[in-house]
């Protein structure tokens, strides 16, 4: 039995994030909270965010789901903590292109660049995107409120 392909998907850094997720938990006074889920598998991610003007000051997550979705949420929070919203948007866009196979990763994505092979596993793209789509929705909401 060959599991070699799997190594491309489940790389060490991803397994680490899944096993020891960062920024997991709630926030004492979040500016906004959003729960999303993937109806196909039942994966759930809740994001909590606190802004400081045009900065995303803090972001944490809770959730339940597969290695991919949980690790991806952990990486998202790593990448986005204390970032200007313009950078947040740039990272969201680049991640989207990365996982759909329409672009490549730059330094901007940090650990999240590990998803550069996931477009070969089309059924798992949704898992990788779950948390990122949630943050995108939260940002859109914030913009709508301004």
């Amino acid at each position, binding site marked *: *039995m*060959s*599991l070699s*392909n*799997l190594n491309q*998907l*489940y790389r060490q850094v991803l*397994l680490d994030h899944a096993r020891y997720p960062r920024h997991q938990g709630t926030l004492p006074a979040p500016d906004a909270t959003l729960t999303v889920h993937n109806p*196909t*598998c*039942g*994966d*759930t991610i809740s994001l909590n965010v606190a802004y400081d003007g045009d900065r995303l000051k803090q972001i944490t997550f809770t959730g*339940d*789901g*597969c*290695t*991919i979705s949980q690790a991806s949420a952990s990486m998202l929070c790593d990448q986005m903590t204390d970032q200007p919203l313009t950078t947040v948007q740039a990272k969201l866009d680049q991640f989207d292109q990365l996982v759909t196979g329409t672009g490549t990763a730059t330094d901007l994505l940090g650990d999240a660049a590990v998803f550069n092979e996931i477009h070969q*596993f089309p*059924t*798992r793209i949704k*898992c990788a995107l779950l948390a990122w789509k949630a943050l995108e929705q939260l940002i859109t909401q914030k913009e709508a409120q301004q």
Partner: protein
Amino acid sequence: MKRNDFPILTETMNDEPFIYFDSAATSLTPEPVVNAIRDYYRNVNTNVHRGVYTLAAQATEHYEAVRQQTADFIHADKANEIIFTSGTTAGLNQVARGWGDLNVHAGDEIVVTLMEHHSNLVPWQQLAQRQHAVLKVIGITADGQLDWSAFQAALSHQTKVVAVTAVSNVLGTRNPITKIAAAAHAVNAAVVVDAAQAVAHFPIDVQAWNADFIAFSAHKMFGPTGVGVLYGKTERLQEMAPTQFGGEMIEDVTQQTATFKAAPLGFEAGTPNIAGVYGLGAAIDYLAQIGYEAIQTQEHKLDQALKAALDQPDVTVYGSNNPFAHTGVFSFNLTGIHPHDVATALDQQGVAVRAGHHCAEPLTEALGVHATVRASVGFYNTIDECARFGHAIQATRRFFA
């Protein structure tokens, strides 16, 4: 066991021999069924019930012959009790709206089980909402069987419908339909059976069951997609109104009014899936040729082999401990590994299984999980495939350890 009627079984998948363990989602389709569909398009290719010319008569005759064949297949009294639908979901919705709206009233009760597929749950939720009726969901025992005393306690003269699956698509549990129907009829309730997961595995005898309505899909019994069967007892069909209007279901139309044909044509609005019905006929022929006895002999072996394959540390199998209570369907989880990750790992080893709630969210929740992995087999699977599946699970556990 006729494996070469299924050319896909000799393919490789991700560089491994392909193992198809997702027959509960849709069964593989043998060559004779595919050929029947092709032959319809090549040699007949006309609409039914509408033409005077030779080929149209031939199409109509064949279409109606498959209706008779289907009636014989499930031991229905008359061909007129067989309505062709687009699938199980369509059939169950037709009953819930066409019969339910006329016969279930405010305060009446509808009984279903926790084992139902969404297609045999949500139409009844919606009926209950429309009619202000009460929906009662009967739970299951620790080993995945219907909680019989809860079921009995739920029945009363308020009960108008009992809707139940013949086989759970998650646990493989077979419900005692004959006994359920007798209890339901004792309080004058109608019995609606979801036979989607039954028909590929054991013979259906609607008269032995004494069910009022039965729905199933061709694509789960080696037939084509887009076609299914709704059986209804003649008396029940007389209590049912059409839910779709147009085409050949009509008797007479004026600008403002219309009258409708009796069953079955009155319930088949529009051009039906004619090629699909040809394919369904071929699937019934194919099943007859294999024989349910041979199917059950093979599936018994597979059930045992699957149970053995899953007998590993950190593997939880849901439902009964008895392999023969699974009807070829095993849902399970590996401790600490998400079902999606398991399914991806198995896929990379050539094994196609499903992960998720299998359109049975309330049941999945009752099992205390968000999702499970499901391996489901057909008579075309082999003992060797079950063994290789066991090894693939082992390798998966190691990979994620």
